[in-house]
């Protein structure tokens, strides 16, 4: 799949995300209210046959990395044309 970027952590535990030409600093957040990730079972089957729709909880998310500060641009040196 296509690349998003690199995720590093500082020794103090601060997440650092490098996406394209940007650096984002974030923080680790423990979710007070976890998220359940629901996937509809039998998503491809057509027509109701009396079988009720069913969602499977495929994951429980209890931690997130929050990047809400403004991305810092990475300035690369562009060699001068001679």
């Amino acid at each position, binding site marked *: *799949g*296509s*690349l*998003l*970027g*690199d*995720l*590093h*952590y*500082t*020794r103090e*535990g601060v*997440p*650092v995300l*490098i996406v394209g030409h940007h*650096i984002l600093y974030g923080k*680790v957040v423990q979710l*007070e*209210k*976890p*998220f*359940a*990730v*629901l*996937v*509809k079972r039998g*998503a491809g089957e057509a027509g109701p046959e009396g079988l009720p729709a069913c*969602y499977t*909880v*495929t*994951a*429980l*998310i209890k*931690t*997130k*990395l*929050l*990047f*809400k500060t403004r991305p810092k641009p*990475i300035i*690369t040196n562009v060699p001068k044309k001679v």
Partner: protein
Amino acid sequence: MRNRSEVDATLQTAKLNAAELLPVVHCLSFGPQAGAGECCLLQLEPGLCAELEAGRSLVIRGEKDEHAVLCSKDKTYDMKIADTSNMLLFVPGCKTPEQLNADQASCNIIHSQIAGFSNHYWELRRCRPKLKKLRKLLMEDPYEGPDSQKDQTFSKYTTEDLLSLIQASEEEILHQLQVLSACKIEGYWRILEFDYEMKLLNHVTQLVDSESWSLSKVPLRSCLEELGSLEPTEMIEHILLSYGRKYVDDGEVYFEMHEDKTCRAIAQMLLQNAVKFNLSEFQEVWQQSVPEGMTTRLDQLKGLALMDKSSRPETISLLKVEDLPENNQERFNSLFSIREKWTEVDITPYIQDLCAEKQTVGALLTKYARSSMQNGVRVYNSRRPIS
């Protein structure tokens, strides 16, 4: 796939000092199903999360014209879509700094896939179970007794039927069935038609009287023997369970008759025969109508009858809270169209059931009514004109 030297090159370009960072990097890329949008997020309270982790399921209930609710085994929640302020990317297996420090693995690249993303989620808010529909369904065909000449109707509901039609958790539904004194007849939940219920109750109280039993020690066996020829034994037992507290003494089953519930039922029987009654006349007839040994009290009629202390003579009439709308604003509109100004004491029994988990009657009145003083007493009236 990205390798370590590419990662290091990026760090250099970004002017980040590798020495200030943990050695492990996550290289994030979008997984094959990431864009499919097949998953959605549901926000959980810790209690619900624990339910799922314990292996239990949650159920979403509602017909096409209803707002969906989510039910655990004993609670009901309104569902609403909320936006997240940022886009959320789901990265299974992404490690936190604590996990990385604890794990002494030798590799320093983790290739992580973004499994999906979302910018909205289902938000849950605990709500009152929507139980008015339960009574409405069961009242479609009340049970009038085995001798009833009524045609077979198909308005009968099993537990499974109710679970798919009522927006409430199973425990809340079963509890309400008990409150309604409903019983299962041939696998279907039935409410007794009021006259039939009173007929059954009367059989019992007459028997108690003629046998001179104590109202707190009514023997099941004798009731079934004496009354079994008049009514089905299941019905006799049902009425005892509805109006009494079951206990065992010396191997025999007895019932302690419930004074408040019995007096209240008899009051309803009297009040439904006319629009309004002279209060003092009613009180006299009522006391004479209840079993000997039971005492009637006006506070037994909360949520069943309304007294008018301002009229001369004072009157009383039937007003059942279960006949009023379930929605808060509609309930208040209905109450204010019945009476313009209410004292808190009078209105409380008719709004108590609207209170949310930690809400008080006072909070409801503040929100839906306007207060004023009348003859030194605080009264509440509508915030808007009622036609």
